[in-house]
Structures are given as C-alpha cells and as structure tokens.
C-alpha cells in the first residue's frame, strides 16, 4: 500500500529545480491569514508539511491503525512492518552504520534528556565536567544542568565570539581531562550559525571525549551523514524537517548505546519480567518503552521519502540565495542590527531595530500575514551575550522565496511608520 500523492517531477533530482513546484507540495503555503497571503518565516520553530506527509497520516489512521510489536493480527503486523521500515529509512537518511543505532523518541528534547539521564547517570561523577556552547537552545542546557546538580559535576560553557561563532582554540582549551561529554548544536536556532561539527568532533575525540550534536535546526537545511561527522550522538525532531510533530530520532553509536542503562521502563523495552529481575530488550527497543507515536513515525517515513527525492544541490543554492538576499535587504534598513553574523550561516535572520521591542514588531508583521518569531527563542544565554532581551527572528526553509523577503521588508517599513 503506498500513498496516492505523487511528488512533482520538477522538485526531484535530475530535473530542472523549480521552487514553485516545491511550494505547491505544501498546502498551507497557499493559505491567507488576516486577509493577506501567508508569508511563513517561522520555520526554525516548526516547518510546514508537504501533502505526502499529511496524506500518509490520514492513510495510517484509515487503513493501518493498530498497536505494534505485539499483535499477531494483520493490522498489527502491517503497522509494525511500516514503523520498522521507517527505522531503516532513517538509518539510510543519516547514513548510520546500523538500524540498532536509531532510537525513536518524541523529539530532540527527549533525545538529549535520554542521553543526559542514561549516559550521564553511568559516566558523569562529582568533579567531572559537561561542556556545552554559549549558543545552545535551552533543551541542550537544562538536561545537562539537571545532570550536574544530581551528580555534582560542573557545566562549562564554550564562549562565542561577536559574530556568533565558536573558536577552535577556546574549544580546545575547555575540553579537559574531566570533560565527560560535549553537547553542541549543529546549527544555532537563534543565530543561524553553522558549527564546524566534523572538526569539533575530531578535536574532542583526540582528547577522548564523546560528542552529542543537537541537529534540530540542521536537518531542514542539509543532508547529515553521522559517520562522516563521526559524532557519538545526533538528536533531531521530525517537525523541524517537514514531518509531523511529536516524533524524533536519537542516533547513537552502537557500542555507547549498548553500554547505557535504559532511560524509561515499561512495555516494549523488555525481554522478560519477573518481580525479581527484568531482562531488557536489545537495541534499539531497550530505549523505547511504551507504545510509541506510531502514526507520526510512519508519516515521518513519508517525510524521509520526500526529502530523499529532492535535488539538494539545487536547494542549497536556492536557500543560500534567499538568506543572502534577506540579510542584504534587512540589514540595509536604517536602525536594524543583525544578531548573529557568522561566516557560515543557514536559515536564520535574527535582528533588533531601534528601540522598538521585537514583540511590537511581531504584532505589526502579523497584521501583514507575516509569521516570524519574537522573543528569546529558548536561548536566553544567547540574548544575554548580545545584551538584548529578545530579537525578531525570520527563519527560512527550502520553500521560501525572495518575494517573501520583500514582504518582510515592507512589513518592517510599516513598523517604522507606526512608531515614526
């Protein structure tokens, strides 16, 4: 049984790339809000979903709905097979060595909490250090803080420079003999900085320290090869890469995952249970207690098929063009200050303007049908680093176009009119 919705030829590899054909795959992009054509620039919060993903969710509930890994009946077998096929697709998508390394979770937050709780409980002791960067999302700070409080370890922070970049010398200086893990974002959600993960992983490994990568923002913009990066853990959320909410992936190297204790106990993660002793299931099920989010997981499989079919070389050129154009247009507006000017950036344009509070800017843009995020973007330490309480963040996805940047610029002019 396969989905009825076809992916248009024009967005596929080996065809001339058409962003209009790509936009047509996303029904919500045809919507109007507040009487204006929707300009959706809040993709770092969540991306929109293509028709194929929406159709797959619908198909699952109409034709396949059943619990998995337990029933002997037809639907359960079909659903189990469909769900486990997604694991194989995910392995392929990330180029992991084995499907045992693919743990399904609710999202990036749960993936990081899993590693902090399980790997942390086993390896981090009083006096040890956990290293994060100064540009992390709260979800890659707080789980480690909790671990440090419980274990007596110290949380150390790699500072970022004025452009919003990590400097290798600082990184080397901070990875010490007591460092038990480095947790770092691939692409910053607040600044758009693309971190040189491959190099940072190499530097950490030279010092015997494993690395967790928060890939939440990266997977919407680029292909990720975990073996090439050589990272030890990679966390991602389906909903930030054109898939459904409530589903995500933790990739972990098999030897590390094997040695780690379970995260949650329950059904599905056991081999046998008596009141005296429980034998845990093998990887990956050891980390997947309880009935998972089957529907969204299966629709995530459709998301991976969709992403797999796209022409990523053309998309990369297109995305760079739109972000470059947006940066040039918005930074030329008098009074605008761009927050985050790293040499390698993707997807995010964060800014402040005069003494107009970002929330006022957000409300006025909203009246024009333009969706941006305003606030601290769950990255308060980043805001503190730049001495601003909040920013306006326009964040871009594969389907955004220059004319939407023009709408944003007109919206910002309107803000200026209101505030004189």
């Amino acid at each position, binding site marked *: 049984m396969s989905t009825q919705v076809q992916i248009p030829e024009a967005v596929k590899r080996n065809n001339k790339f058409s962003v209009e054909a790509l936009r047509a795959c996303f029904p919500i992009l045809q919507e109007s809000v507040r009487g204006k054509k929707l300009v959706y620039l809040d993709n770092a919060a969540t991306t929109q979903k293509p028709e194929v993903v929406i159709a797959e969710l619908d198909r699952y509930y109409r034709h396949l709905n059943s619990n998995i890994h337990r029933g002997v009946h037809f639907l359960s077998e079909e659903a189990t097979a469909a769900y486990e096929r997604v694991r194989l697709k995910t392995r392929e998508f990330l180029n992991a060595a084995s499907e045992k390394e693919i743990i399904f979770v609710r999202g990036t937050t749960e993936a990081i909490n899993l590693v902090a709780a399980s790997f942390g409980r086993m390896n981090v002791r009083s006096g040890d250090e956990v290293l994060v960067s100064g540009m992390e999302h709260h979800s890659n700070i707080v789980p480690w803080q909790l671990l440090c409080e419980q274990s007596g370890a110290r949380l150390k922070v790699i500072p970022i420079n004025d452009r919003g970049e990590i400097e290798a010398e600082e990184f080397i200086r901070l990875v010490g003999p007591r460092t038990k893990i480095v947790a770092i974002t691939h692409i910053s959600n607040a600044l758009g900085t693309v971190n040189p993960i491959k190099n940072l992983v190499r530097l950490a490994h030279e010092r015997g320290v494993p690395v967790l990568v928060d890939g939440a923002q990266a997977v919407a913009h680029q292909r990720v090869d975990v073996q090439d990066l050589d990272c030890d853990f990679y966390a991602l959320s389906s909903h930030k890469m054109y898939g459904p909410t409530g589903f995500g992936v933790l990739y972990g190297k098999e030897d590390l995952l094997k040695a780690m204790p379970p995260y949650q106990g329950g059904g599905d993660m056991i081999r046998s249970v008596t009141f005296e002793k429980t034998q845990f299931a093998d990887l990956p099920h050891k980390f997947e207690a309880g009935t998972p989010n089957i529907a969204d997981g299966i629709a995530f499989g459709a998301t991976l098929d969709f992403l797999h079919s796209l022409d990523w070389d053309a998309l990369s050129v297109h995305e760079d063009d739109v972000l470059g154009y947006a940066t040039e247009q918005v930074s030329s507006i008098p009074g605008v200050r761009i927050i985050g000017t790293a040499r390698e950036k993707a997807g995010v344009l964060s800014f402040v303007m005069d003494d107009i*509070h*970002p*929330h*006022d800017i957000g409300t*006025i843009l909203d009246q024009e049908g333009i969706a941006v995020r305003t606030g601290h973007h769950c990255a308060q330490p980043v805001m503190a680093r730049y001495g601003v*309480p909040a920013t306006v963040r326009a964040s871009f996805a594969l389907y955004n176009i220059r004319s939407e940047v023009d709408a944003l610029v007109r919206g910002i002019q*309107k803000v200026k009119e209101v505030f004189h």
Partner: protein
Amino acid sequence: MSDLRSLYQEIILEHNKSPRNFKKLDGANRILEGFNPLCGDHYTLYVKLEGDTIVDLAFQGAGCAISKASASVMTTLIKGKSVEEARAMFAMFHELVMGTLKDVSFDHLGKLAAFAGVSEFPARVKCASLAWHTMRNALDAGTGTVSTE
C-alpha cells in the same frame, strides 16, 4: 492599518516614548517585580502607601510598547487614589483588555480607553496586564515576582 491603530493608539506610542514616573522611588514601602519570562517584559514597581492612600508610585524596567505604556498610564491614574479605588480600576482595566467590559462609556474610562484595542490581540493581553497585576499584588502586600504569562 486600522486594526493596528486600534492597538497602537497615539497615547500608547507617546507613553512608550516618554514614560511617566519612570524612575526609582525613594521612600517606597512596597516594591514588587513584574516579569514575563517568555517575552522578557521586566519591570519593578515602587509604591508608597500611607494608610489607605497610594501617595506615590513609579516604575523602572524594559519591555514592549504595550507593557511600558500600560505601566506608565497606570502610574498616572493610580497616584493619589485609595486602595479601594485602585482595585476597582484594576478590575475595570482587566475586563477592558479581556473584552468583557460592558455598558461603560469610554468617557468613564478616560485614558484607559486607549487600551480597548488590546482585547483584539489575545497574545498581547499579558503585556498590557503585567503592571496592573504587579500593582494589585503590591497592594495585597504580596512578595515575589508577578507574571501574567
């Protein structure tokens, strides 16, 4: 643009630009913090209460135009009022921004009328309400931090 003008009234823009009673108040006997961590609006409210009368009040801090103008207008309206009058004004303001205020002429509202448009912007009600909730808690002799998120 008309919808926006209903939110960003001239009075609001003007109070945002030049907030009244925007200072630390020496001799204040009730000092309370109002903080909405998600949006970052953060103010300290100083109240000088003598018997049943709010003889003076002032505020400091930073936030969006709506929250700052609301705090500023509030200080001008509450100064010199009794605790009971201040509470009544809080109740009226609350209903106004929630859009539940009925049968009250705008003349009666005075400067508060500028905030009538807030009710059309649900996401901004918490901005407009922050200073008012902080004031009410200060009168209740509450301590700690007030939030409207």
